[in-house]
């Protein structure tokens, strides 16, 4: 079944068509890669999918639901969660609290209970703690639960961001350059984590990445963006051996 179906998505910034006629279709459970040279419009595409920007044209469908033009908040509630290229953690909150903010809409008690710490507060907070710890364990962060997020080493901050996104219980996870700034060892570990997340949570994942080893290693299908337009898309092996793709990369980098 198709989970994400995007048709003719376009946006312009002052005459520049940053994303032009973008189409993508992702099946449930797929691990999909979005690649392309710097400035090709990959992050802009993510920002369109998550409602940070509103598209000038096009339709975004998540399952049966048309989510075009919805706000970031509504899109998250509909089932898309993301990470950011330049990590955006809640830096003055603890590691576990970062995940608990992600769990915000999964659990609920009244504001009165927030202020007075009524029994429902204690009950729900305990459940939230358990759920958050479960997620932290997946990423090997359970021992750092009380650290401030900003005190984590870089690689673990990236993992925490993924954990926080997963906490919102999404159908589709968007990862924006998860391996940026990582050494080969860390990247290898990250690849395993991503695959684990996919299997363990049955997650559909769309990722932007420059690390070709990672892309070739885990992505099943790829879309290549160049100058805001789709250059080609298809199974990973075919795309990576496409001479035009090679030209786009070497020509630019």
């Amino acid at each position, binding site marked *: 079944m198709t989970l994400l179906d995007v048709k003719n998505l376009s946006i312009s910034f002052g005459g520049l068509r940053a994303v032009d006629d973008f189409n993508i279709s992702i099946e449930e459970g797929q691990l999909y890669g979005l690649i392309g040279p710097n400035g090709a419009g990959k*992050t802009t595409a993510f*920002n369109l999918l998550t409602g*940070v920007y509103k598209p000038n044209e096009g339709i975004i469908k998540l399952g049966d639901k048309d989510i075009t033009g919805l706000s970031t908040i509504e899109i998250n509630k509909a089932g898309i969660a993301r990470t*950011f290229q330049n990590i955006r953690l809640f830096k003055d909150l603890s590691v576990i609290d970062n995940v608990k903010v992600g769990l915000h809409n999964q659990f609920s008690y009244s504001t009165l209970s927030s202020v007075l710490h009524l029994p429902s507060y204690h009950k729900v907070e305990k459940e939230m703690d358990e759920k958050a710890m479960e997620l932290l364990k997946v990423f090997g962060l359970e021992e750092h639960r009380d650290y401030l997020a900003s005190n984590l080493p870089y690689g673990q901050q990236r993992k925490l961001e993924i954990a926080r996104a997963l906490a919102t219980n999404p159908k589709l996870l968007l990862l924006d350059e998860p391996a940026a700034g990582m050494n080969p060892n860390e990247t290898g570990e990250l690849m395993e984590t991503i695959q684990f997340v996919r299997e363990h949570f049955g997650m559909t994942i769309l990722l932007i990445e420059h690390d070709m080893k990672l892309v070739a290693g885990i992505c099943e299908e790829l879309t290549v963006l160049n100058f805001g337009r789709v250059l080609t898309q298809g199974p990973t092996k075919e795309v990576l051996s496409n001479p035009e793709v090679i030209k786009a990369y070497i020509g630019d980098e």
Partner: protein
Amino acid sequence: MNFLTYLINGISLGSIYAIIALGYTMVYGIAKMLNFAHGDVIMIGGYLIYTASSTYGFNPLVSILISVVGCTILGMLTEKVAYKPLRNAASNLAVLITAIGVSYFLQNIALLIFGANPKSFSSVVTWEGLSLAGGELKIQGVTIVTILTSVVILIALQLFINKTKSGQAMLAVSEDKGAATLMGINVNKTISLTFAIGSGLAAIAGALLCSAYPTLTPYTGAMPGIKAFVAAVLGGIGSIPGAMIGGLLLGVVEILSKRYISTQLADAIVFAILIIILLVKPTGLLGKNIQEKV
């Protein structure tokens, strides 16, 4: 005719606000700080003129010159001692609170030296003014001088910023400190120069303010300082024409509301205008809208 008189008085008060706002907007544009002590520099400028002319008998022009030099030094000094060390502080509240400290300091130094009793300030403008339309429309000399001064200052500032190297450096620093450093601009010197100009302008504003409203107390500068900041925000902070327009608008609204609506409510109306304009245009009349990059 009455209306015209009030309008001209409004423009005159607005010109004073504009001169203060110019200093505010330049300092804010470059140091990104709410300088709460800026208004108190006006007051210090007023006392300097008062002392120079009343105590030492200097003529008005020399007194103003002394005041401008004094305030310029004061502005550079406070920047160096109190604000510069906090430039890269973890929270920008730090420099705000320090500016409040400087404001208290200047007020209390003045209180200590000159006491709490108002000093009556003799106008630096001795010219009587114009009498038009057969005496129907009287315009005071200080009103005319104020308006002319603000026009001259605006033109001079525009020329300075657009035509001189130092002016271009200011623009560059206010745009991006890091990039300006890489281009070989001395950021420290540029910021110091900005404070110098802002404080010098405050001294001139002090002379005009005290000439038009001749009572001088240690708290004389506080409210005009706040209103000038409102003017700067209203015009779009960082924008020099914006500060001018904001200042004039505020002055006219204040004088006309005092006359036609209510003396007590004039300030409330001035502040309400700020709110309304920011609701329609959140970065002020001529401000640039900067969107956060995701």
